[in-house]
């Protein structure tokens, strides 16, 4: 795993200088964090390069960082013949949640990006049909953002703070 991560780090630093922010091994899973403007071309490189060959998009999902100021998109890609996995993370400001779509690389990204848009409001530029998928069309919030709590936080009858509420 560490070897693979070093290879990716070397290749990306020469091909796309400055776009790779950092790399880590998280529970034996190689993770790279890249700039959001470069995410598409890095994924395209990782997919089309013959030695890496991350041709299978396992998962695509969104994330809001702990400070609430940034949104992220997490890609899990997989090289099936060599059975190698990689997680690519990219973050951008919640004020301008825009990132290039990867539907041109993977057909399966279509609904996964729609789901991410539905719940986090990430705008995937160039997506063929970026509309809500699981929630009703009339909804005007992005429910998985942390600013929308699940329970009414102002309830007085349930202030059991010792249990973390």
């Amino acid at each position, binding site marked *: 795993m560490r070897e693979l991560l070093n290879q990716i780090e070397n290749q990306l630093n020469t091909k796309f200088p400055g776009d790779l922010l950092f790399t880590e091994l998280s529970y034996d*899973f190689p993770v790279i964090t890249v700039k959001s403007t470069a995410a598409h071309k890095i994924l395209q490189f990782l997919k089309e390069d013959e030695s890496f060959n991350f041709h299978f998009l396992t998962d695509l*999902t969104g994330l*809001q960082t702990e400070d609430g100021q940034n949104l992220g998109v997490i890609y*899990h890609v997989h090289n*099936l013949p060599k059975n190698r996995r990689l997680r690519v993370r990219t973050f951008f400001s919640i004020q301008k949640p825009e990132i290039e779509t990867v539907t041109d690389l993977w057909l*399966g*990204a279509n609904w996964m990006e729609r789901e991410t848009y539905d*719940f986090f409001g990430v705008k995937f530029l160039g997506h063929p049909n970026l509309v809500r998928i*699981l929630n009703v069309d009339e909804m005007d919030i992005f429910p998985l953002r942390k600013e929308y709590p699940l329970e009414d936080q102002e309830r007085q009858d349930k202030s059991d703070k010792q249990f973390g509420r």
Partner: protein
Amino acid sequence: MSKEGNNIVPTDTIEKEYSTLNLGPTHPATHGIFQNVLKMDGEIIHDAVPTIGYIHRAFEKLAERRPYAQITPITDRLNYCSSPINNFGWHMTVEKLIGADIPKRVQYLRVIIMELARISDHIICNTIIGQDTGATTGFLYLFQFREKVYDIFESICGARLTTNIGRIGGFENEWSAYTWEKINRFLIEFPKALDEFNNLLERNRIFMDRTVNCGPISAEKALAYSFTGPNLRAAGVDYDVRVATPYSSYEDFDFIIPIGSSGDTYDRFMVRSEEMKQSIRIINQAVKNLPSGLSHADLPDFFLPPKEKVYSEMEALIYHFKIVMGETDIPKGEVYHCVEGGNGELGFYLISDGGRTPFRLHFRRPCFIYYQAYPEMIKGSMLSDAILTMSSLNVIAGELDA
């Protein structure tokens, strides 16, 4: 109409018009709540627009408010045809996060349950393919065995469909002799019944005419659409999470991955049918080589102490309280764990910030991902083939809508 009336519009200028047909949301042939707005040219489907989300229950948001042990019942309701796989997948994700060491016995017991769940999942899919081609006999016959699988689950955890089986760390109690008797009887009776069911359909002329070349998908397309599980294997790609990234001691077992060639309904049926036989093989090996010992790990922070100790010992009472209230310490971390669910790679992407609940939990639901290929698979086929294609994809509404 008069002759003159017929001649008002010259024949070659008549515009071609498509008719719109609403298939669903509640249509008996779709086995779930899905809507497809079909654009029909006679009986040929020209285009389809699926609408999903009818039973969306905001599981990912709910999970952000629940302690780890309380998330298991949520996972039940993803693919409710094989709940135990989802339960164990979640337990294993948490165990990976906390770095728990799980005894071999627990892993083997889990394998037995997961393979039984896979069998019950495939029974549903395959018998319903038969049902949709008009063969009700096999459906009613093999469904008895699904009940027998549920009897086994019931004797272990008390529930049949949404099982919430096991705990983080293992099983809450030892399996009874009754359970083992049920399992042994199932292992003897089911292969015979499965063979009889397959004899009814496998080389049946009517069945083959209906299913061969019905809703095919090529391996390239299947990979591009991120297919996993039996549907990908039917297209000819031998990817199985149990072999690629073994979990719960799957590397100890000897089994093969059946693959198809054309990715049509017949191949999907045959792949699932062979997988059931392989599951029986795995269960037989697990029962035969079952290690002795406790059926849970030594995890006082997560595994509830025995009830009699809770009433008599201070420490057990404290742990019991902490677990029930969800106050155990969880390390910070970011984990992705996947298991081979009934429909393919079921992934759990968990981010913990050290709090009592996950910071973010995402379910990679195989159904949701491959169902988007459905319009492309049914374009140009007949309406009745579209129904059959949907059954053979085994689209489960709970998993689709989360």
